[in-house]
């Protein structure tokens, strides 16, 4: 048993990479992930990536902000220190709509930045997890889990025939821990 963990096919052109994906899928070889330096339209559907749940998270971060602000305002203007301002009720809701809106946006934005860091393992001080550094520059990389797909020679051949400039057999998942 070899120690190869991942096979990476490195392409110089997005169309060739799409051909590579098609060939691998035709041969029932499961693709672990694809890394590209730029967004490629429609690739999620091709790879069967599930729809992001970021919008649901955004909604709940936002509603947390709304509730926080309204609770805070209520505690300050009604419970703790009621002041008569222009004869209005203490909890004059329209007055606090703008600030509630702002806090909704703020919580939503901070929450999403946090979710993004958590899901991508990016955090100040942490080494980023990258399988091939050139995928952040000028290469389009298909990663295949070598343990799940036994026919390594066939994978190499398919990737090369699709136009891969380079095929790597990596013994570790990420190259960027150091």
């Amino acid at each position, binding site marked *: 048993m070899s120690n190869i963990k991942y096979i990476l096919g490195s392409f110089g052109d997005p169309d060739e990479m799409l051909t590579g994906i098609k060939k691998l899928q035709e041969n029932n070889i499961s693709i672990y992930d694809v890394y590209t330096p730029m967004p490629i339209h429609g690739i999620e559907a091709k790879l069967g990536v599930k729809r992001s749940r970021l919008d649901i998270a955004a909604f709940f971060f936002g509603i947390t902000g709304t509730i926080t602000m309204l609770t805070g305002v209520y505690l300050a203007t009604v419970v703790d220190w009621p002041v008569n301002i222009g*004869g209005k009720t203490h909890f004059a809701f*329209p007055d606090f709509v703008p600030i509630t809106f702002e806090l909704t946006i703020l919580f939503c934005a901070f929450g999403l930045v946090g979710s993004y860091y958590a899901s991508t393992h990016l955090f100040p001080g942490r080494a980023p997890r990258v399988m091939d550094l050139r995928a952040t520059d000028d290469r389009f990389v298909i990663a295949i889990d070598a343990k799940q797909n036994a026919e390594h020679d066939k994978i190499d051949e398919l990737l090369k025939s699709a136009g891969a400039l380079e095929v790597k057999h990596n013994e570790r998942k990420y190259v960027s821990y150091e």
Partner: protein
Amino acid sequence: MGTHHYNLSEQFEFTGKVKSLSIAGIVVGIAAIAYGLMGDHVSHERTFANLLLMGYYFACVCMSATFFLAIQFVAQAGWSASILRVPQAMAKNLPLAALLLIVITGLGLYTHNLYHHWHAEGLTDKGSENYDAIIAGKSAFLNVPFFMIRQFVFMGSYAIFAHFVTKWSYNEDLSGGLTSYNKSFKYSCIFLVIYGFTTPIFAFDNIMSLEAHWFSTMFGWYNFASMWVSTLAIIAIIIILLRKAGYMSWVNNSHLHNLGQFIFGFSIFWTYVWFAQFLLIYYANMSEETVYFYKRFNSYEFWFYLNIVLNFLSPLLLLMDRDNKRSENILLTVAIIVVCGHWVDYYQMIMPGVFEYGPKDGSGFGILEIGIAAGFVGLFVFTVLSALSKKPMVAKNHPFLQESLNHHL
């Protein structure tokens, strides 16, 4: 991608039930107007208030359809290239709509059924017992000749642009090339500048001057938001219904998604402007400003809150989800709610200015409201669908047509 078999010379046939229903609507409208004009003075005023409401709505929708076309050209938008014939059919009716609104406001001024707050005997004569210092101070702007000149100049300039931008698109069908597109782009830029500066004044003239003592600088943008979002909703309704009738097979979920985003976003924008106007007045609490909301809170409370429910809460909750924007039926439902909602919006802008104390003064919701609304809806459907049926349903030589046919979000 790239392989599709759409019939690009498809033409709409305007016949059958839709045609007879729209004609029936027009007949109902004329009957309602006649019924209103046979009544007493209050009934006259109510008829004119409703005519102003629907005439303004009709003109605004046709104007904003022209604005939609101009925006697409200036932004060099590709997604909309295949649906442009629908707003074009609406823009083609702008001359008619403009003429109707001019006739309604002119007759309203002449018979003193509209705008009598600033147009009445002796309002600006110092010796007269009717003398009103505030109106006299505004009379350099608010006088009948200048008012009518503004109506003609503003709507006339929109109508001229609407005429040419549709004509160039039809020329493009015949000759192809980029000449028409470049011309449309150039004149769209000029049109947007004119439109942006004049629509607030247009709204001040037609609606805000009903209560000429009160003013709000937000009012123009508030009206702009109303007319724009209701137009987007009407475009969506027409496209979805055409699709259900088997036309425009090239319109896919992504086009609907774009329209849904537009309706969602501009409903929020409408709320933002509406609320900005309300909050400043509420917060400052100055009597000369709060009088506007005083009338609406006391005699039109139901309409005031219904307005927010229809125009803010329903699009917010129903269109927030991505799948809902892409669903034909949900988008159609929300668009119909928004179109009705902006009728309510105009209703509570106009009626308290005419009948200060609500039903006690003679306003309400009955035969006149429903009949005149049906009349204008019938007229709108009839004229727009006739215009649509005269030309192919897609501008086949539009330079961005392929992008639109392959549109995918």
